[in-house]
């Protein structure tokens, strides 16, 4: 067998060669790819701008918590968070790319827009809006404020106006949304409800009223999420941490907005026509619990403007209370057993209080009118005699001067201690910041004079806030049990109570039931025959006391060179006198004036209106018909 015969020439496998070449090409490509990848990964430094543009953004986003609501005692919304919208305009939009015809069309639409804006914001005309847009476009302004912040309804109307409806890229419309606090009842109890500049603000000096004090509950806690940009838009990055926002809790407060409305209206009616008044306050409190059902604080804006809720006078303004403090002296002498009955009498001749410089001009005229030389304590209370109460204080609590200088103060200190026991000397814990500490003088200081004790007896030389005085009278109405005034009933989360606050006791017994009844008798006499006769014939009997004091001037006098006085007129009491449901105080503050603003005037009239209206609507005064069991069957 020849080798040539068996040797067959090698046949070229074309498909194999093609596949091999393809394989080699792919191999080379893969090698290049690997080398390139390695180079990019290890050594390549891209242009930062390109890198930023091509890297998907992964940004942290703060989730704002919803601020809790404030509800009144009946569950009605007093404060709610709503968005407001502020419109701006980028007036340069399409300016560079528009041809003359397109530019004219844009300006025509801007003119139509201006007409619509003028309808929404009447403070500017359509021409003014058009000029604003046109001038800003010429000046190349990109952030022009349009009108003022608007609510959702106006927002919906404005985005449908010509030009704006073309969208932000064609119109330049920019809208900024912000959550703000809305108060559906307007100015009612605004100072009590208060405000916080915004839910994000950490500035605490703008935290006023309940909104401010309970911001830590209402605010909630911010959440946090990481967002990334995808082909489908901006979505949460599920690979990153997510902290859920915790919404603020709701605050249920004791105010009854109907009662607040009645009280506000009653007080405004009385004071709005009095230019000499600078402020007034009215507080309504529930006797059994100390829950404040209405708290009106009206102060003239800038001293001469309309009355607004801009300062909490009830807790933040202390002054000499005047004759309403006589009840404190009366309770003290009754508690300490110095008098047994209101019918006990004192001499009524000159009206001079022994050992002091106090003279009461009303006593000689009283003695002459009643043809007597004695005055009973009850009569002294009815006519609000300074002599009677200064005498009671000085006779029973006077300094024993026989023991020497700086000694023999025990009785006086006992009287002052009684005042402290009645919680009239301290700023007790309250649901609002700013409760003033009363001023009570001390006989151990060098400022104490012989007249001070007598003055305290009828309500001078001390300073009290209206809330302190009301708390004291509420205790009398509550038969000696002094309740702590409060505004926050409970804290709620989605309608479920998470923290109950409610009533508290300041002093379980400031006096015995018998003493409370005795004082109530005296207070009833004031409204029936005394200085508060305006309340006689109210729909339910009111027991209370008037008080008028004069503010001091820089020279220490109670009147200026023209004889003008600064009045603080108060009426405080409770109703119904026999089975008290509510205690109430109204105080008015005057500017220096020649007119008189007594406690028996405006305060008594305002309270009369409140009492009459409350009596008609309050469930406590409803008449109950009992079913006849026989008929029921």
């Amino acid at each position, binding site marked *: 067998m020849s080798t040539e015969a068996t040797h067959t020439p090698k046949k070229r496998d074309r498909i194999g060669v093609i596949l*091999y070449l393809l*394989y*080699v090409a792919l*191999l080379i490509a893969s090698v290049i790819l690997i080398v390139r990848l390695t180079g990019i990964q290890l050594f390549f430094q891209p242009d930062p701008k390109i890198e930023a543009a091509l890297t998907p953004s992964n940004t942290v986003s703060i989730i704002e918590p919803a601020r809790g609501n404030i509800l009144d005692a009946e569950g*009605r*919304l007093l404060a*709610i*968070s*709503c*968005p407001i919208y502020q419109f701006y305009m980028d007036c340069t939009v399409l300016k560079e790319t528009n041809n003359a015809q397109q530019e004219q069309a844009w300006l025509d639409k801007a003119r139509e827009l201006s007409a619509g804006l003028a309808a929404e914001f009447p403070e500017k005309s359509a021409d003014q809006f058009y000029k604003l847009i046109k001038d800003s476009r010429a000046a190349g302004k990109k952030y022009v404020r349009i009108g003022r912040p608007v*609510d*959702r*309804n106006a927002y919906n109307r404005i985005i449908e106006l010509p030009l704006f409806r073309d969208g932000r890229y064609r119109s330049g419309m920019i809208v900024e949304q912000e959550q703000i606090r*809305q108060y*559906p*009842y*307007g100015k*009612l109890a605004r100072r009590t409800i208060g405000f916080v500049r915004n839910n994000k603000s950490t500035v605490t000096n703008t935290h006023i009223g309940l909104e401010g004090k309970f911001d830590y509950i209402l605010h909630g806690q911010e959440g946090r999420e990481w967002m990334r940009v*995808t*082909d*489908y*838009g*901006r*979505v*949460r990055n*599920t690979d990153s941490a997510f902290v859920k926002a915790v919404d603020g809790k709701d605050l249920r407060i004791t105010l009854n*907005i*109907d009662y607040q*409305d*009645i009280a506000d*209206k009653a007080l405004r009616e009385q004071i709005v026509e009095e230019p000499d008044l600078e402020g007034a306050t009215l507080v309504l409190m529930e006797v059994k619990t100390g829950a404040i059902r209405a708290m009106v604080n009206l102060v003239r804006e800038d001293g001469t403007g309309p009355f607004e809720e801009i300062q909490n006078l009830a807790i933040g303004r202390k002054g000499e209370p005047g004759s309403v403090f006589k009840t404190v002296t009366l309770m003290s002498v009754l508690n300490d057993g110095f008098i047994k009955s209101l019918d006990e009498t004192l001499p009524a001749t000159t009206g001079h209080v022994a050992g002091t410089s106090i003279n009461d001009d009303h006593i000689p005229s009283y003695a002459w009118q009643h043809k007597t030389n004695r005055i009973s304590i009850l009569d002294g209370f009815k006519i609000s005699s300074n002599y009677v109460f200064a005498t009671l204080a000085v006779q029973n609590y006077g300094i024993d001067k026989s023991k020497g200088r700086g000694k023999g103060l025990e009785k006086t200190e006992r009287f002052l201690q009684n005042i402290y026991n009645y919680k009239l000397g301290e700023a007790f814990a309250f649901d609002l910041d700013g409760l003033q500490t009363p001023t009570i003088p001390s006989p151990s200081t060098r400022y104490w004079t012989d007249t001070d004790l007598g003055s305290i007896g009828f309500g001078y030389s001390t300073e009290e806030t209206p809330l302190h005085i009301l708390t004291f009278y509420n205790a009398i109405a509550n038969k000696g049990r002094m309740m702590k005034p409060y505004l926050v009933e409970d804290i709620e989360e989605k309608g479920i109570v998470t923290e109950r606050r409610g009533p508290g006791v300041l002093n379980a017994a400031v006096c015995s039931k018998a003493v409370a009844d005795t004082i109530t008798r005296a207070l009833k006499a004031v409204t029936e025959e005394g200085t508060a006769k305006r309340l006689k014939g109210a729909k339910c009997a009111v027991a209370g006391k008037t008080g008028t004091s004069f503010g001091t001037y820089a020279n220490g006098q109670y009147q200026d060179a023209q004889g003008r006085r600064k009045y603080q007129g108060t009426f405080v009491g409770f109703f119904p006198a026999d089975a008290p449901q509510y205690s109430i105080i109204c105080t008015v503050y005057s500017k220096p004036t020649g007119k008189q603003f007594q406690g028996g005037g405006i305060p008594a009239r305002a309270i009369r209106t409140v009492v009459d*209206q409350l*009596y*008609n*609507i*309050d469930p406590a*005064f*409803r*008449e*109950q*018909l*009992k*079913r006849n069991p026989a008929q029921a069957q």
Partner: protein
Amino acid sequence: MKTWKIADIGQFFKNSFTAVLKGEFLLRLNIGRYFIHIAYTFLLFGLIIWISLMIETTMSKVEKNKAVLKELEIVHSQKVFEVVNISRRSSVEKLLEEMGSKVTEAEKPATTVKR
């Protein structure tokens, strides 16, 4: 027994390179034994990519729905505000008066029937 030499490394790379050029590298490694595992791994990779895309789509829907819910909440709070706004006692009284209604404030307390 064959002992290991440094030159074997060079031989190994040379053989490997030759095998790669001939297209026999994977066959020599007998990688066919693991073909099913490799195929399964690639399937898993595909599945992960597909699920990621699905998640992204869902998340974008979530974001859109969140925006809708936010809008509804805004409308709701606005409506609540408006309703409460007109329920003020003195506003109602004024409205009734303007409408000529005979309904006024109660002039005496209500009478209730005790059960």
